[in-house]
Each structure stands twice: as structure tokens, then as C-alpha cells.
């Protein structure tokens, strides 16, 4: 672990026994093991006088270069993990592996993505996973970088998304450069984020790094998925791979753990309840880890002909599937006699209503006797400090298991138990639900027509105009869309897994812009049109990510939902003023983004992004969207600033 002085390093190399490289070792290791043979008898520890000279950097001139630093081996390990990108704001505590990535590794697998803030790096990796299904790496300073990154790490943790975090550090205090390197060093770098990552390690040696790097990947990818962190000591990155260590270096085999399925007895009981129910309801939140999750949910829903409520933590069910009854969620929950919750963030909040009043109160939203079934991988792994686990849900059947992996067995059990009588009842239910789905679609269109020509522009108009421009493309909505009243879900045809990525998880503002760019980065090689409906307040957290998008030529069509406020907080302050019966017209103080209005187009243009706006006339939307789409189709980012209604 300890970084060595140059004299010490030279003498060690001369005195070390050199052996042949182990089988399967990467190029970096083989070269190090083939260093020139040592001169006998010169490996003794330095005498006191020599040691004194070691402290003087002027004395030593030999041994100042190496062709095989430890960082090269780290890159070999990262390549074995098939990591496509590493997002990073450059920092000296990881300069060793940075240089190894771009020179030894050829800046490919992983490719270095330059970010302007660590929060952007992590949020990019967060959304990248939700498109690509594999982790993206992040490099950060162990101290200042991790602190910048912390909010985005928390979002990923809450959203159960793996991010492969690496942080630089200089552990050997006697080898630190005076000044900044001390301020950028830490005893236990992971401590500041350990409450909201799944696992971390601080490898002492390169063999230790190899095992921990592969182990971290495996842990991150085992449901419930979460970020992991490997701390990289500066000496390990920069110092030569010693002949002593070289024979021990190998890249361990990675075998991902099969996701845990629900207990067979619990699956059978769940199937029995669902088949016998008069009004079963399926609720899905972070269900579909992969595209297969969508198909598995459809198969279960159609086996029961039961309504599905999509809470949209992931893309779970096509928006136009007739069993998708998300628009009537409240009514479905109220009428249910059995509710199956699949990877729900908040089962309690699904079946209870809570009133945010001066005297807070709650009431059940379900009928007495309604049976609740939960399949949730989060039950396998819990931490206590941060309270994202929500109220305790009193369920009747609880499976600590991955829901996507459990669905096939549950569907088969349902089919086995379904009699002809039940099948007829299911079909009648299907007919009713198809009619309800069609009515809901028509109702959404009728609602969208209200304030159609308004300025500020209605979010329904903005969504409808945007949909008309992208509907013929292979598109992917890479943003959250809850703050635009869900109009995209009500008007667009969501069908594929990559068309919706869920939300931030931890509701940490500042996620939206970098996550959208990260999702677009993943979509880039697939040739998809990434679409981002971007909140204005979120944009301002770390707008440098638009430079990243321009620099790396990441195509993404961003439409500003510019309501000129942190509007959620406008509503909260209004609530406080009303409760306290004073100043109900002062909600704008501290919450709005006006005086001056932000010119988002100019900011984007300054970062090298094509941009138009602000647009206030709804008739100007369509041509602006078309021009922006043309830019995106050339492989560049584009932004259209739209001044909108609040929600």
C-alpha cells in the first residue's frame, strides 16, 4: 500500500527475485515480471545516511520512470469487467489510473468522459445503467470529489442502481506532497458515503485490488443493486508493478449471482390469492430491471386479466396496453381485494392516503380485508440511517426476492390454478378494463385541450407537440417527467424498456440534466433519439454537463420545462403561509427563478450546444422542435427553451 521513495524502489527492484509471469496475466503484469535481473546482494535496507538522502528529492535521479505502473493492471481489470465509460472530473489523487486509461488502455473500454462536477459524473452513470443494463464507472477524488458526488450517489442508492465508483486517495502520510494533497487525503474515504452504498474496499495491493474490483462489480449487480466504491491508493496506481507482485496478479473470473426468486410456498400462496380474487390489482414500481421484465409482467397480468398500475420507477408496461390502468390508480386500489406489489418503493403509501396539513393524518385507501402481497428485493438488504425505506407495510405475503426473477414462477402457478370458470371471469374483467383504458385515453386527450393556446405554454401542449416530432423515431425519454403532470405518459406510446428510465430515486434535485446526458450516452451507439424534458431549477445545479454533451458529441434533444421556479417549493411555502394565515402572496420569495429570467439558450450556446428560445408562443414549438431534431440527428445535443405553466 505504502508509496515508496525512489531509492527504496530502485533497490527493491534490484534485490527482488524475478520469476516468470503467471498464466493468464495481462500485458502490464508480464512486462513487469520481465524486468532486468537483480544484482546479488544489493537489496539490503538503506542505511541511516541513505535514508536521509531519500528524503531529499534532489539526490536521486535514477528509477524515476516506469513503463509498467500499477494503474495499467487496474485498467486490465476494468477492461475485463466490460466497462464502457468512466465519467470523471480530473483529480490528482487518481492521476495514475487516469493516465493508464488514456495511454495504456487506449482510452477505450473504458473511455474517459470529462465531467465538470462529480455529481454529474455519478448521475450520468446512474441513468446509463438504466438504459444499458450494466454499470458505468466514475472516478473521483477520495475527499473533495466524493463529497461533490455524495448527493448523486444517494440518488442511485435510493433508486437501487449500481454505479461503479472509484476514488483516489494517498494513504501514506510520509509520501504526500505538502499542501493540497494533505487536504485531499483521508483515513477512510468511504466513510462519508458508506451509509448509502452497498459495499466498499480500500485495497492494500494490486492482487487485493483485482479481487475487490471484481467482487464489487458482482455485489453491485446482485439485487437489490446499489453503488459500490473502491478506493485507489496513489502509490498503487503510480508505482511500478514489482517483480515480486507480478506473478500473483491475475484477473479473477466474474460470475454474476442469479437474482433470488421467491420461495416456492410463498409463490403458491400468492397465486392462490390472485386467482381467487374478484378484483386483483398489480402495482409495479422498480420492477423491470431488463426488457424481459416488461414481457413477464404482461404475461402475469394477462394470465389474470388484472389491472396494472405502473408507478413508473422503471418502464414496466406499455402505456397503451389495455390492462394498464395507471390513470385510474386510486379507483383500482380502492376496489381491490388483493394487491400484488412488485418492487414498490412505498407499499404503505400505495394503500394509505396521507394529508399534509397542520395536523397530519392518514387513512386507509383499501377495503378492510384486502390482502397484500409483496415481492421486493430491498427486503434482502437494509440500512438504518437514511430513511428512504418508508413506512412499514403490513402485508400478508412477503417475498424477499427479485420480482422480475420471480414472475415466471408466479405466472405458471396462476395458470395451473386457473379453472375454466375463473378464466371466463377473467375474460369478462378484461373486457371491462379494455373499455376503461379506452375511456381514459380519450379523457386524457380532452384534458390536454384545455389551455391549449395559453402562454405560458401548457405542459400538455408541449408534450403533444414534442410527441408529434419524435413519434416516428426510435426515441428514448431520458428524463423524469413527473413535474409536467405526466403528460408524456398520457399522450405518448411507451412500449420499449429504454423509452422510460424512471426517476432519481432520492429526489435530489440536480439529477435530471446529468442523468439525461448519461442516458443519451448509452443510447448513442444504438442510434436512438434521446429526449429530455428538463426542469429549469435542476438545470442550474451543474450546467457544465451540457459542455460534456457537446464535447463528447452526445446527441440529445432537450426541451426546457421552464416554469421559472423551484415550483415544488413554491407550493410548500404557500402551504406554510396558509397554515400560518399570513403573507399568502409572498410564496415567490426564495423559490422563484426570476428577476432576471435565466436565458437557458444562451447558457447552452455558451457550452457549444445548439439552442433556441425562450419560446412563449405555442405555435412556435413545432418548427423549433423540428430544427432541434435535425441537429440531434447529426449527432449533436440541442436545446429548446420553453416557458411553461407550472406543472
Amino acid at each position: 500500500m505504502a508509496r515508496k521513495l525512489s531509492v527504496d524502489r530502485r533497490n527493491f527492484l534490484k534485490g527482488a527475485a524475478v520469476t516468470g509471469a503467471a498464466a493468464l496475466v495481462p500485458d502490464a503484469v508480464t512486462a513487469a515480471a520481465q524486468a532486468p535481473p537483480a544484482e546479488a546482494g544489493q537489496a539490503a535496507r538503506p542505511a541511516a545516511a541513505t535514508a536521509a538522502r531519500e528524503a531529499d528529492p534532489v539526490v536521486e535521479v535514477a528509477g524515476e520512470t516506469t513503463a509498467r505502473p500499477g494503474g495499467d493492471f487496474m485498467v486490465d481489470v476494468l477492461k475485463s469487467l466490460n466497462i464502457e465509460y468512466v465519467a470523471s472530473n480530473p483529480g490528482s489523487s487518481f492521476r495514475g489510473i487516469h493516465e493508464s486509461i488514456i495511454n495504456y488502455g487506449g482510452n477505450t473500454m473504458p473511455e474517459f468522459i470529462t465531467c465538470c462536477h462529480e455529481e454529474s459524473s455519478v448521475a450520468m452513470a446512474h441513468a446509463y445503467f438504466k438504459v444499458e443494463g450494466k454499470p458505468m464507472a466514475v472516478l473521483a477524488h477520495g475527499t473533495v470529489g466524493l463529497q461533490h458526488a455524495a448527493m448523486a450517489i444517494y440518488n442511485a442508492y435510493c433508486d437501487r442502481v449500481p454505479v461503479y465508483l472509484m476514488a483516489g486517495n494517498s494513504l501514506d502520510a510520509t509520501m504526500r506532497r505538502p499542501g493540497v494533497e494533505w487536504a485531499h487525503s483521508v483515513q477512510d474515504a468511504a466513510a462519508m458515503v458508506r451509509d448509502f452504498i452497498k459495499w466498499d474496499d480500500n485495497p492494500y495491493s494490486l492482487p487485493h485490488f483485482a479481487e475487490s474490483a471484481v467482487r464489487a462489480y458482482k455485489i453491485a449487480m446482485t439485487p437489490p443493486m446499489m453503488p459500490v466504491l473502491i478506493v485507489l491508493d496513489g502509490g498503487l496506481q503510480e508505482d511500478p508493478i514489482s517483480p515480486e507482485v507480478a506473478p500473483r496478479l491475475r484477473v479473477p473470473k466474474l460470475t454474476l449471482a442469479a437474482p433470488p426468486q421467491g420461495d416456492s410456498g410463498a409463490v403458491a400462496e400468492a397465486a392462490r390469492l390472485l386467482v381467487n380474487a374478484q378484483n386483483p390489482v398489480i402495482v409495479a414500481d422498480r420492477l423491470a430491471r431488463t426488457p424481459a421484465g416488461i414481457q413477464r409482467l404482461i404475461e402475469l397480468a394477462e394470465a389474470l386479466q388484472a389491472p396494472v398500475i405502473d408507478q413508473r420507477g422503471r418502464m414496466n408496461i406499455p402505456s397503451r396496453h389495455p390492462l394498464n390502468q395507471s390513470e385510474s390508480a386510486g379507483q383500482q386500489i380502492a376496489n381491490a381485494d388483493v394487491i400484488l406489489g412488485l418492487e414498490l418503493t412505498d407499499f404503505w403509501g400505495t394503500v394509505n392516503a396521507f394529508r399534509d396539513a397542520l395536523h397530519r393524518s392518514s387513512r386507509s385507501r383499501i377495503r378492510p380485508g384486502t390482502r397484500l402481497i409483496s415481492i421486493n428485493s430491498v427486503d434482502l438488504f437494509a440500512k438504518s440511517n437514511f430513511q428512504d425505506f418508508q413506512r412499514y407495510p403490513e402485508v400478508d405475503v412477503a417475498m424477499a426476492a427479485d420480482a422480475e426473477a420471480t414472475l415466471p414462477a408466479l405466472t405458471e402457478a396462476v395458470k395451473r390454478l386457473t379453472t375454466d370458470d375463473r378464466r371466463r371471469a377473467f375474460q369478462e374483467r378484461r373486457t371491462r378494463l379494455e373499455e376503461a383504458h379506452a375511456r381514459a385515453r380519450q379523457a386524457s386527450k380532452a384534458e390536454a385541450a384545455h389551455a391549449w393556446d395559453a402562454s405560458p405554454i401548457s405542459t400538455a401542449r408541449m408534450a403533444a407537440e414534442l410527441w408529434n416530432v419524435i413519434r416516428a423515431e426510435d426515441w428514448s425519454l431520458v428524463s423524469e417527467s413527473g413535474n409536467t403532470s405526466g403528460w408524456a405518459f398520457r399522450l405518448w406510446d411507451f412500449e420499449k424498456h429504454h423509452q422510460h428510465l424512471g426517476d432519481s430515486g432520492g429526489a435530489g434535485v440536480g439529477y435530471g440534466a446529468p442523468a439525461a446526458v448519461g442516458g443519451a450516452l448509452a443510447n448513442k451507439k444504438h442510434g436512438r433519439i434521446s429526449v429530455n424534458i428538463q426542469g429549469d431549477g435542476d438545470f442550474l445545479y451543474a450546467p457544465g454537463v451540457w459542455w460534456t454533451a457537446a464535447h463528447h458529441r452526445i446527441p440529445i434533444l432537450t426541451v426546457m420545462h421552464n416554469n421559472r421556479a423551484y415550483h415544488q417549493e413554491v407550493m410548500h411555502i404557500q402551504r406554510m403561509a396558509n397554515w400560518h394565515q399570513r403573507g399568502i402572496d409572498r410564496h415567490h420569495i426564495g423559490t422563484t427563478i426570476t428577476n432576471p429570467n435565466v436565458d437557458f439558450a444562451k447558457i447552452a450556446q455558451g457550452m457549444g450546444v445548439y439552442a433556441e428560445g425562450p419560446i412563449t408562443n405555442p405555435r412556435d414549438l413545432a418548427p423549433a422542435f423540428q430544427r432541434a431534431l435535425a441537429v440531434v440527428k447529426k449527432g449533436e445535443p440541442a436545446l429548446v427553451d420553453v416557458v411553461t405553466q407550472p406543472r
Partner: protein
Amino acid sequence: MKKLFGAAVLLLAAAVATAQEPKPAAQAAPAGNAETGATLWRNVGCWQCHGYEAQGGAAGPRLSGRNLPWTGFSAYVRRPANQMPLYTEKVLPTTDLAHIYAYVQSRPAPAQNVPLLQK
């Protein structure tokens, strides 16, 4: 909290018409000025959940085009159910509420046969 506001919309639309216990007797609306009401609509925060045009959204239901009776409208504002914050007489006198009511009632009918919404 986002989900709290999101969930509210599921219940608010029905609650606007039915939340009061006991139901007050129907009354005619006091005279109100829609233009004054528009200013008040923005100043006292109605737009935040219901939109500048009372068209509604995730945080609050549409009020335009509903022809809501004054009695239920005013009673709900004084004692709202679900997530809406209450407006007391102290901070929003009935005369001002009548202007707001006039503004809501004056909102234009929705656009008809919008081509984009026919697809």
C-alpha cells in the same frame, strides 16, 4: 413529497364537489370581477396547483369548464380535503374569493378538434 402531490390528483377532482360535511345550502355567488380575479389567482397561489388557466395538473384538478357551483367551491376553499391548503376568511376575504370564482368561470372552453390530439 412529489408522490404526495401526484397522488392528490387522484382524489381532488371528486373531492371538489363532494368533500363537505355537512353540505351547505346552495347559495348564489356574490358579484365578482374576472379581471380582478385573475390578479388574485396569481397573487394568492391558486395557479401553483391548478395552472394559470385553471386547467389543472398533477398537483391540482382542472377547475375551468366545470361550472362549479359557488357553494361547493367556496366551502372547499375554506375547508379543503386532501392536500389543498386551506384559505381562511382572514387571508382571503369572501369578496376576493368571489373575484377568483368569476375568473375561474370565465375561462374559455377547451380547443376543439385539435389535430395533434386526434392522432
